[in-house]
């Protein structure tokens, strides 16, 4: 039994190590992709405002959408929100977004459109 243990343990270890390396590699890929994407999104946002062909009202909505995408990249890729043990930050941010959304939407409705 003891011998058996000695022979299996290193393979288990090696297996875990390979998995970790793969995960790291995957993560690095995500980082690279999102880094390039974020730069591209910023350039696109810049062009949307710079170009005369896109109307201002559309451009505002367009770059706000891009900003939301950027926030998701930031939170999930760079701040690892998708990893385990991030339930509380997600809950906190979701409720913060909810409170802010209610506030902004009601104020828009009650002050600036009436």
């Amino acid at each position, binding site marked *: 039994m003891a011998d058996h243990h000695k022979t299996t343990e290193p393979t288990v270890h090696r297996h875990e190590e390979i998995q970790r390396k793969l995960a790291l590699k995957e993560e690095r890929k995500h980082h690279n992709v999102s880094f390039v994407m974020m730069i591209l999104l910023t350039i696109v946002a810049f062009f949307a405002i710079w170009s005369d062909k896109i109307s201002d009202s559309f451009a505002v909505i367009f770059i706000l959408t891009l900003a939301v995408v950027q926030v998701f990249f930031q939170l999930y890729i760079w701040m690892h929100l998708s990893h385990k043990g991030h339930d509380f930050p997600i809950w906190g941010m979701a409720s913060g977004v909810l409170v802010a959304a*209610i506030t902004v939407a009601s104020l828009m409705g009650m002050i600036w459109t009436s």
Partner: protein
Amino acid sequence: MATHESHKKRSGLMDWLTTVDHKKIGILYLLAGGFFFLIGGLEAILMRIQLMEPDSKIFTGELYNQLLTMHGTTMIFLAAMPIIFGFMNAILPLQIGARDVAFPFVNAVGFWLFFFGGLLLNLSWFLGGAPEAGWTAYAPLSTVAEDTGVDFYVLGLQIAGAGTLAGGINFLVTVINMRAPGMTFMRMPLFTWASFVTSGLILFAFPALTVGIFLLMFERVFDANFFNADMGGNVLIWEHIFWIFGHPEVYILILPAFGIISEIVSTFSSKRLFGYSAMVFATVLIGFLGFMVWVHHMFTVGLGPVANSIFAVATMAIAIPTGVKIFNWIFTMWGGQIRFTTAMLFAVGFIPTFVMGGVTGVMLSVPAADYQYHDSYFVVAHFHYVIVGGLILGLFAGLYYWYPRMFNRVLNETLGKWNFWLFFIGFHLTFFPQHWLGLMGMPRRVYTYMSGQELDGANFVSTIGAILMGAGTIVLLINIIISASSKYATTKDPWDGRTLEWAMPVPTPEYNFAQTPLVRGLDALYVEKAAGNGEMTPAEPVGEIHMPNGSILPFIMSLGLFISGFGFIYANWIVAGAGLGLVLITMFLRSVIDDHGYHIHKEEVEADIKGGRA
């Protein structure tokens, strides 16, 4: 590591100025909050003396407005909240089996910010007059006020509010990260739960106040025009922002009182809390709904029937979880072995009083009816029933309940009962007649009324009641002084407690638990008592305990903001810059000086355990 072991023992005043121990900060909060409570109470009695007789001319006009503004502001921001924070500091880490809060340094910063903010606000009395625009500081009243009173309000609350925000974040992290092994969320005592939800509300509500006050500050100090209709601004923006903060603030105040009452009712009925999970759910739901009702303070503004109806329905919905709580307290007492100690008397007095405040609240939530009640004494009666009859009775209950744990002495029960009956009868005498004064048309915030309008009798009774409340508070002070001068030390568990804060010897060791306890159920200490153990099972062997070092930096940092506050009030940019510079220097020092704290050695802990000190 050498830095680990450099630990200076400080004593006397310096110890209190530099402490980062949550128990000592809790006492500081309680003392400072208690002091401001007395000031706010004095202001209230002065107002009632003015209103005792019709056409009275003792405190008129601007001075009455100042009393009124400072009474509201002081009681909410400088008395109620700090006393709540005092209990949260002193008790919450013990209840979850933690050795301290998550960020002891930030905790100290939070206290000193509150203290200096409150000091700044109250110094306005001596420096050209207090603010006079009401605790709500509605624009344009607050933006056109010429003297510096409102500037003190703006800067004082900004500084104190930053401290509150820091405290709220600290307790959120503490509850999430510092619970002892086995202390799952659904095993946390209700006071901890209530404090947790309250901290969440602080996190989301106080930024609104911060932003609002910044806008008001820019309007007053730098001539901005956010609320100036002539320049394209909108006065309603202030009202919205203030109440987006202000309504959750009401629940920030009342939820901890709910928590305290839950602990006390359960302990003195010798029963576990009825419907624990429903209580937790109700607490969270009240916190959640609290963010969607602010417009009920603004029904008469003219936002239209749709907005008014939506917010009216949301407001009425809050009565449901609150009702759940009321019934659960009653069912907890039902069939229990009730002991009517002073703490329990306050808790039992709380329940019907709070129900009355809640019922008038539902009445006020009907927009059509609110047009009648708005800005009358009916509203004053309502919110004093929930804040004094709810929160303050809860805080008194908590004081008598936790006094032995905080100060190692039991308050005298006979004096305590005098305190309760004087305060309770005085309270109802003061505010019950005000319902009728309001229905008869007496407007709030007005410094006098004419005779011959049938307002005389009720106002006279109301003033007598206020004096009785004052007498009740004086009895409490006498009680505290007597207990402080007596040598009598309490046993560690005077009430046959059920939760972890009663598991340590008195005085509570600075590291709280020599060994982190293992929690095996709701009412952790009761579980062990029922199993015949009598004390907690440790979850770890005796070992070194890591402690944070005290620091004077929180005090100096807050002092810097205090100084810069004066600079902004008097538009003296050198002073303002110097104060902010001091803040930056302390922040820099805090960042670059490595302070790893120190360790209490295993031998010392073992000696404490052997000597009965841990």
